[in-house]
């Protein structure tokens, strides 16, 4: 399993990082974290899919609406490394149970301090993950704006 967050690290470094974490099995539909929860761990997806949702009013009811899905190898919950350390989405295992490795923020920060080169690579990998999310949603936002403008000017 290749994790996007651990790209460029040696096998020894990857092993050290994974030893910091705990494997969790998430049954289908069960939440890994909820919107607004304190974010003190980030997760590496090992198996299954993690569905990310946000609450939305649909016909007067609050519903968790699909935002995106994370596959094996992808990172979930990077709010654990970004202030104010609160999750901004709700994450749950999708149709089947999922397996993740939970990495505590404190343990990661200690490892980064002791291994700055590895910490720098992980931080750059995290920037790629966050940057891709930013570009993706920026594009989606612009497409929605375009439709809004077309509807208003029709």
């Amino acid at each position: 399993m290749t994790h996007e967050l651990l790209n460029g690290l040696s096998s020894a470094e990857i092993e050290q990082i994974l030893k910091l974490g705990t494997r969790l099995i998430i049954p289908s539909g069960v939440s890994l974290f909820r919107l607004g929860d304190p974010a003190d761990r980030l997760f590496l997806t090992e198996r299954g899919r993690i569905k990310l949702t946000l609450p939305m009013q649909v016909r007067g009811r609050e519903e968790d609406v699909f935002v995106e899905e994370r596959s094996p190898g992808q990172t979930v919950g990077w709010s654990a490394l970004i202030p104010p350390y609160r999750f901004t989405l709700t994450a749950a295992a999708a149709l089947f149970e999922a397996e993740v490795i939970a990495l505590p923020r404190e343990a990661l920060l200690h490892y980064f301090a002791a291994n700055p080169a590895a910490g720098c690579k992980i931080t750059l990998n995290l920037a790629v993950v966050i940057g891709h999310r930013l570009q993706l949603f920026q594009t989606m936002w612009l497409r929605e704006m375009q439709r809004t403008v077309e509807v208003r000017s029709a």
Partner: protein
Amino acid sequence: MDMLLMGLCVGVSAVAFVALAFGAAMRSEPWNSTAPPPQLPLVKAVAPARFFSDRAPVPTVVPSVQVPIEVLLLQIENHVRLEQAAAESFLAFPSQALLHSKTTSPLVN
């Protein structure tokens, strides 16, 4: 003489008939004068009957056909997936055409 008696009898009978008729008429007159005039029951104006409401009639609005909420949520999810795929295509090969490419999402078509 006979004619005179006959005329007298007819006259007396006529007077007696008129007197009886007058008496009968005078007896019924006080009932009418003392009795209060019949009062018709006050009937409140009744509005046309409406089911379950006394309010002014509301113009009938034909509700639009709504899909079940589960179907709507699936449509939203499908829409987001299609939009993400379109956005990924744009990010892989940025161009104005891909930025505004159309999807098959029922929410925007």
